[in-house]
């Protein structure tokens, strides 16, 4: 079971990021979220979602989803992709991985809160 992201459906509202932050901190905050809207190319209207899982990063871009194994050699490249992964106050690799909100009342909070069902749960 895992979280599936359709970046083209995403409207960039950051509700998923806040819901995940709430799950982590029991308050409203963004700093600990493991799902993040990357939005550093604002003038280009290019945005998507990045999710940190146990051993991988799921980068959902408008053109498709890329899965990167954490620690693999190409992750060390200083590329624009790398910049997106770190386009937040706290680098993704330093955040706790997704636990599917297993102890929460609502299951994955990001799935529950997405207003356009861009984030779904797949078995």
């Amino acid at each position, binding site marked *: 079971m895992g979280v599936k992201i359709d970046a083209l459906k995403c*409207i960039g509202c950051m*509700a998923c990021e*806040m819901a995940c932050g709430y799950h982590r901190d029991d308050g409203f*905050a*963004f700093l600990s979220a493991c799902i993040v809207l990357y939005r550093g*190319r604002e*003038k280009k209207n290019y945005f998507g979602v990045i999710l940190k899982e146990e051993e991988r990063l799921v980068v959902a871009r408008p053109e498709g989803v890329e899965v990167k194994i954490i620690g693999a050699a190409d992750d060390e490249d200083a590329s624009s992709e790398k910049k997106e992964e770190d386009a937040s106050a706290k680098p993704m690799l330093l955040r706790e991985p997704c636990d599917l909100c297993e102890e929460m009342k609502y299951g994955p909070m990001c799935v529950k809160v997405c*207003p356009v069902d861009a984030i779904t749960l797949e078995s």
Partner: protein
Amino acid sequence: MEYLSSERILIVDLEAGEVSEDDLDEELVAEKIGGAGITKALYEQHQEGEPIVLGAGPLTGTLYPASSLAVITAGSPVTGHVCHAPVTYHAGIELKYAGYDYVVIKGRSNKPVYLWIHDGVADISNASELWGKDLWETTDALRRTLGDDLIQVLAIGTAGEDGSDIAQVGVNYWSSGDRFAFGKLFGQKNLKGIALRGMGLLEIADPEAFVDAAFELLSNIKDGAAAGKKGVEDICTAMGQADVKDWLAPLVHRYSACYNTPYPSHTFVFLDADPKKMTDPGTDEPGFRVTDVEALLGFKKLGLSAEAACRLMKACAKQGVDAAAVAELSGRAGKTDAGEIEASLSSLTGTVSLPGRGIFSPWSPRKPLFGDFSVSGEANDWWERRMAVAYVFGIHPIFAVMAPELTEESMLEITRIGTELELDGEVLNAVVGDLLS
């Protein structure tokens, strides 16, 4: 004010070049709730300094649907009224997460400055190198200088510096709902802009009950009349302008929303790249984010093509002029040529029409969209009360007129849950009455 709040008010004295802080008094929140209710009170408290007051509502930046709004309250240099302009996108919430619920900016600096508010720290910085830059250049320069692409910027272009009566405070690269020439006021104070960034945490009095109520509301909204609709086009259709959809269609790239707002009210158009291409467009400035329905319809009414209208809106945003005012004043002057209108932006002057008491921005349509609000009585009275309530709690003012699920009772109830304050309809009526007095 312990919950849903940074607990702090920032006081900026531009004349003295000093910043200080006040605590956000729980008694003030109990009396005025927040948002425009408190910004107006702070405006009156600091009136001798002709202040610009920024503020967030108690629900701003939470999981309550559409909780994206902050407000700029100030005396309009054109109408003289104390008015409230919306700050949305992702900028409204950034104020609160940067460490302050309210910011009072008073006096006038003797040289160009900008404010950098970040993680509970506020600096007044030299803006001499920004003065003369347009809005896009200013936002790029601030993000580059301060080292973060996600900094949210409220700033003026050259129109505000030059004292234009239709100068607007823009948000990042985009136009805003400032219909009150607050851009001119920034210029008069030698204030080029405000950069915001923060990673604060808002405590909740009863987290589980808050999220239960917010998710129930969201579920109702997802089953409601606005579900599945998007962009400025569907708003135009609801306003009786269905042909906008086909007119704009060849340019449409992708839709986006303000923070936690279920309706994507921004239609991004590509003007210098293929709108069907979803990969990085290559060019740095492929188009424009269209949110201002009034401006779009105004330019369409002049007979402009969709491309000409959107290019003009982009030019207005860069210079920092209110595109809706440009459309209205150009129409009055009989100008219908996009090139001629663009050439006149720096010299265009005149008084534009504002609805009702002229204190809330017609950036939000003045009638219910999609949803049934069972409006009785005068539509404008309904709209002004709806705006007042949205601006008090921190709710997106466009979504506020399309989602009847967001009732005044639900805003009060969830604020009570989140803050433990005993707020009721009587308090809200008093706050709204004061705003509309």
